[in-house]
């Protein structure tokens, strides 16, 4: 079950690389939230009830429902529907993402450890690289937000990978999600207009 969910998660990352409509980004991030909810339930069955309720409700409600809703609101308010045409084309981004997948597999197997799930580690590395690629190759602020949210999901997967040994780390990661997610999406996402030229005054 966990392996299926992990593969599904990886597919959403590949899909994120080729799409260019923000509504699709929002749906994919929501789907990732629900997959993480499934992974949490399957992986953390040994955790205490309190931890399990806290972490699973964060994935289901915050990642699965609130994040896509807020992205949709931002898209509606700003009327920016697609990524900037000057951004890297979908083909090259897909190429980078696939290369990062191979690097992730290599790294996860090099770091093989009896206490850490290698599949999770692979997907976590892959998600982290993808988030960074989205941030670096895109020009619009909303794209940067999407990249950051993907990076947050990577941190969550990393914490799940070590979670059964240290549930405190998952709780901290979850708090990071909520804190930064709400701050960035809620305040800046709504405040800053998407036109990138408005945010290029600070230079030497």
């Amino acid at each position, binding site marked *: 079950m966990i392996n299926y969910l992990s593969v599904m998660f990886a597919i959403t990352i590949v899909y994120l690389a080729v799409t260019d409509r923000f509504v699709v980004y929002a749906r994919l991030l929501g789907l990732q939230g629900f997959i993480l909810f499934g992974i949490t339930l399957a992986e953390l069955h040994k955790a205490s009830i309190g931890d399990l309720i806290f972490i699973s409700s964060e994935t289901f409600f915050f990642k699965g429902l609130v994040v896509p809703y807020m992205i949709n609101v931002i898209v509606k308010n700003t009327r920016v529907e697609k990524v900037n045409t000057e951004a890297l084309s979908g083909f090259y981004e897909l190429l980078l993402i696939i290369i990062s997948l191979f690097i992730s597999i290599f790294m996860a197997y090099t*770091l093989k450890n009896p206490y850490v799930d290698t599949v999770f580690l692979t997907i976590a590395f892959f998600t982290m690289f993808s988030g960074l690629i989205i941030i670096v190759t895109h020009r619009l602020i909303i794209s940067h937000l999407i990249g*950051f949210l993907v990076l947050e999901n990577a*941190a969550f997967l*990393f914490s799940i990978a070590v979670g059964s040994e240290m549930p405190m780390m998952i709780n901290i990661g979850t708090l990071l999600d909520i804190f*930064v997610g709400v701050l*960035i999406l809620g305040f800046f996402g709504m405040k800053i207009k998407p036109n990138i030229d408005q945010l290029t005054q600070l230079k030497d």
Partner: protein
Amino acid sequence: MILNLFFIISALLGFSIFFSKSKTLTKIIVIFFGILHISFTVYTWTRIGITDLIYFTYDNLAVLFLSILSIIVTAVIYHGFIYVSKDALRKYNIYHSSLILLVTCMTGAYLSNNLAALWIFAEATTLAVAGLIYHDRTTVSLEATWKYVFLSSVGITLAFIGILFISMMMNGTPYNDLSFASISEVAVNAKPLYLKIAFLFIFVGFGTKMEIFPMHTIGIDANAVAPSPIGALISSGLVNMGFITLLRVYGALSGSDIFEWMNKILIIVGLLSLLTAAGYMLKAKHLKRMFAYSTLENMGLVAIALGVGGNGYYAAILLLILHSFIKSSLFIQMNQLYRVQGTLWLDNSGRYLKTFPAGALVLIIGAVSIMAFPPSGLFLTEMMIFKALVLNGNWFVLISAAFLLCCIIYATTIRVMHVVFSPPREKPDFVADEKVSPYETVSQYIFLTIIIVLCFYQPPFLKGMIEQTVKILFN
């Protein structure tokens, strides 16, 4: 108990400011917080070596930097009152509430003996700093705030992933509390690859706070745009927080197989920081941005000092202490310069000595100090770093650093001399006629006097504390 009280009272004070109906009441609350912070710092001097509330230890490093923070915060509070005096009550209250939150979180981070606790406090500083950078509510401040929050968040996430790698390393061992003492025990027998990945992530992540390459850009923008007293606090207190984190992680991993590798990384990052700072300072057109890049330069020197080892550890800590005082006085001075000249753009600035001699003198002494010319205490620290480089035979690093420092000295000198002595290159399209009282420069002169005194005489307690810190961290 006292630590608990400090955190609770500080939180209550920060929160109560939102309900304040007058600026006088807000002022009283902030002054009370300043006194509380100083009192708490005095208390920590009586508890050196003791652990409180499990996650906090009053060690030499923490107490030393907490004392510096207390001194700088006193000046920041005073100059903050002047900076926000004309603001509406709501803005006035948000500024002071964020300031209290920031100082409290930095205090928690300084004292943390646990990586997870330190990370939480570092995360909370991002929120407080964001509120302060956005204070002026301009497009530029929005841009700086956005960049700060976004890149800080990315940095914090990367640091979190680094911490997770340390947790992975701890699995299957009796240590699972993420305290620096436990990390140090586990690191000795840990897989080097895990340690390297963890160190890189934590270094890059907390590098956002220390304003070191490659995450320095947000610090530059934040320092340039934030209210000047806050710029003083960011470039001293917050930078010190980043340094303390990296020093503690570096110290905890120093007994492992990756020690030499970490040193190489620190030296490379240090040189790249110097290179970046020199390049941008040579083309800087804005005085505040130039001094912000000077922070990057000094952090580069700190990284090189740590990487070289030996006397470098002592030099790094002393450099940070001196840098805190010089940079605070320079950033506070920037606000006075702005009030007198109406601009910080170099082309529109000039003849500062004529318009405000007391401020011009601060600018000259500050610039001489930050360039590490005698009688600045920084001269001693840079000598120690160069001596350590010679002893280690790091000739390439020595020559490169010396060359880049020459470029930085050239860039700083011509710009400061222009502002102080020369007429403006372009006629400003505005008239700035605000009078600044020379008494407002008192705090800056006190800070600069400390720098000069420390060049000739370092009190035994200071020497002892730095040496103890080095001994504990690297033994």
